């Protein structure tokens, strides 16, 4: 038996004797973290202050709201209730299954058996719910019949949504657990679409690593402003978690004094790497390269090389270990070998025998377009960046190289005029 919140709000509430006590102004549920939060009380409005009636006194919510008592007791709030009309209806909510931001058009209340408790079952985000709220369902159903179509009924189970409320930190933490399991790119989309105070409040609840992963996926214009909303120490921690290339991009967009302050707060090791990258122009190979890559010394066999990698801190840091670069004592690039070749080769073979000695490489000042062209032409996943002495500086990964070449998607902003 399904009841919609829109069918309850504003309806008269009758007691067991059939006397009218007032109108229903809101429905309170509790246990939001569970899939089926139970209805705790309804708020009754009768001119003055709303009066709360406990769920135990409710006999029916639909078709009419009828109580099982003549003079119901007053419900005492415990602080963990969610006011459905005031806090959820018409608000934005995250659909964690569909990974998008939706607006709540209506809420579904379910009762498992007659006399049993009511619980919040789902969130209606479809056009059907919208029409119901507007009272246009009946007149328009004819039109839909004529068009042989159904108004879209999109109901998301409550267990798959995360409510968002900047002013309710506890509830936000419950949502955080659901949201932070999503892919950083999806989180970034949601953060970009949310209004600023809300996105800030949500981000604050994430751990540094989640913020860092999300930041890497967010539009550059927004990155700087998000970083600005974090306390400086936290911002520095987030920058450390990010790839040095991404961190440098964000810092490059900041005001010089702000940038210096954050670099100062970062750990020295991370800060120097980022500073090195900041020295290169934004659209050059140096500007888009990362300093997270893996090298092995010369003269190793395949078995020794794999063993070396297992113990190499560089390899632990590198998130996408496609290539292993062979360098001499002066870090001059001697060759490259794919991880796949390395793993598949017999352990006693010297790396020097199977590595590619003629490495496709670029200088730090090479243009981004040229880097992208080389990456595309030679089907590379990453391309090394070396200085004039052939000393390795970093690598440009294929995604970063192609980032600026691909046509920028439609930005979710209003057109500029008007």
């Amino acid at each position: 038996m399904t009841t919609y919140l829109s069918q309850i709000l504003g309806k008269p509430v009758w007691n067991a004797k059939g006397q009218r006590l007032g109108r229903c102004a809101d429905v309170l549920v509790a246990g939001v973290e569970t899939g089926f939060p139970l209805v705790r009380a309804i708020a009754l409005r009768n001119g003055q202050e709303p009066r709360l009636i406990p769920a135990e006194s409710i006999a029916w919510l639909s078709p009419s709201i009828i109580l099982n008592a003549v003079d119901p007791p007053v419900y005492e709030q415990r602080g963990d209730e969610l006011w459905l009309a005031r806090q959820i209806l018409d608000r934005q909510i995250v659909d964690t299954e569909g990974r998008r931001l939706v607006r709540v058009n209506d809420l579904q209340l379910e009762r498992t058996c007659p006399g049993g408790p009511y619980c919040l079952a789902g969130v209606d985000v479809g056009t059907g719910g919208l029409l119901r709220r507007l009272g246009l369902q009946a007149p328009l159903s004819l039109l839909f019949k004529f068009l042989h179509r159904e108004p879209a009924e999109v109901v998301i189970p409550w267990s798959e949504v995360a409510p968002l409320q900047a002013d309710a930190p506890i509830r936000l933490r419950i949502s955080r657990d659901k949201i932070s399991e999503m892919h950083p790119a999806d989180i970034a989309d949601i953060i970009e679409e949310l209004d600023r105070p809300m996105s800030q409040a949500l981000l604050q609840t994430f751990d540094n690593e989640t913020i860092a992963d999300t930041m890497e996926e967010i539009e550059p214009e927004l990155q700087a402003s998000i970083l600005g909303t974090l306390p400086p120490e936290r911002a520095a921690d987030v920058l450390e978690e990010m790839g040095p290339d991404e961190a440098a991009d964000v810092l490059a967009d900041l005001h010089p004094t702000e940038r210096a302050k954050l670099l100062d707060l970062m750990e020295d090791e991370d800060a120097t790497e980022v500073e090195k990258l900041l020295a290169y122009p934004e659209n050059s190979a140096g500007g888009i390269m990362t300093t997270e890559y893996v090298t092995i010394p010369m003269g190793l066999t395949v078995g020794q090389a794999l063993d070396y990698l297992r113990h190499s801190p560089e390899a632990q840091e590198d998130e996408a270990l496609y290539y292993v670069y062979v360098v001499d004592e002066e870090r001059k690039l001697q060759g490259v070998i794919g991880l796949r070749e390395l793993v598949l080769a017999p352990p006693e073979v010297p790396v020097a025998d199977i590595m590619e000695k003629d490495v496709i490489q670029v200088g730090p000042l090479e243009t981004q377009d040229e880097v992208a062209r080389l990456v595309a032409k030679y089907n590379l996943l990453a391309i090394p960046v070396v200085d004039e002495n052939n000393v390795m500086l970093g690598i440009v990964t294929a995604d970063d190289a192609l980032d600026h070449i691909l046509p920028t998607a439609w930005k979710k902003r209003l057109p500029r005029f008007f």
Partner: protein
Amino acid sequence: MTWKQRMKPVAQRLLLFLSIMGPGLITASADNDASGVATYSMAGSFYGYSFLWAIVWVTFGEVVTQEMAARMGAVTGKGLTDLIRERFGVRMAFLVMLGLILANLGTTAAQFAGIAASGELFGVTRYLIVPLAAFAVWFLVLRGSYQHVEKALLFLTLYAVAYILSTFLVRPPWGLVLRNTIVPTIHFEPRFLLALLATVGTTMTPWGCAYMQATVADKGVTMNEYPFTRLDVIFGAVMGNVVSAFIIICTAATLFTHGIRVETAEQAALALAPLAGVWAKQLFGIGLLGASLLAASVLPLATTYAVCEAFGWERGINTKPDEAPMFYGLYTFMIMLSAAIVLIPGLPLFPLMWLSQVVNAVLLPAVMVMMLRLANDGSIMKSWCNSRLTNAFATILAVLITIATVVLLWDALF
């Protein structure tokens, strides 16, 4: 330090300022779209300088409403329609949206009327140029290649400056101009009230408020940077209305004094004759075409976007038509209907251009009431609620507009 290094902090500070500045200037220059020019030309040619005082008060009104919207955008980070839906519910949001669609449909039709009028100045029939322009706008915007054309069109809107130059060449009686700017004159006749409402409607639109709030929220302006935004709002409103005032002065000095009452684009173009001589028609035509095309390509898209956002429908031109049927449907509908209105045989183009603005003005009080309630709601605005002065001014304005509307309706009915 080299010169370049020394200039860098200055340039950066300037960039910060410019990146926050903008929406105000842009909304204000939108005053001079097809309907704006038509409204002011009409007002100037019918009532001469005696209409100037209205511009002063409309400027105040624009500053007050736009500032309110900008502040709400900065505090909440939300759009106006979002706030209306969350505070007043879905029915109210639906009504406001319906009003916005209607008003913007009218304004878009006015832009197509502007396109038709400028076409007819060059001897091109409206039955050719309007469908062509409608298709071009529809296609270019959906293809996303609109940005390339935008700058060229923006440049064309600069023709409004020609009115300022033209005015100085005519040498109007500045003493009289000044007196009329300060001392209000009111004619109690329906036509004057209509002109007044059209002026209000073309300057302080509900749509302008929604746009202002959306851009401020979108840029992520915080309350620390808000003084810049407020400056931008004031500066933009003043600039836009100075140009409006010059259009009125120019038409008053050239046409009103010679007893010409503007009913067609041809007559309106005459106001530029002191500057452009025999080329006045061409100058006016090209400028009007540019301004109209620009507005016609943006208004339907932005309206559709706002509507879809408020109701949570799939939107954006990177979605496919079958993923976002409401978005594409509404967008196409708006362009087709407004172009079709203009193609009704025998429809006078120029009056359509300014009469469409009356719809905006009539809607304004309703939106202002909601804006006032939102901007005074402590749970939304925290410590940045409206000042008493703002409230008083906005309330008086809303009441006056309502009275003017009622008087007009009364007159039309009885």
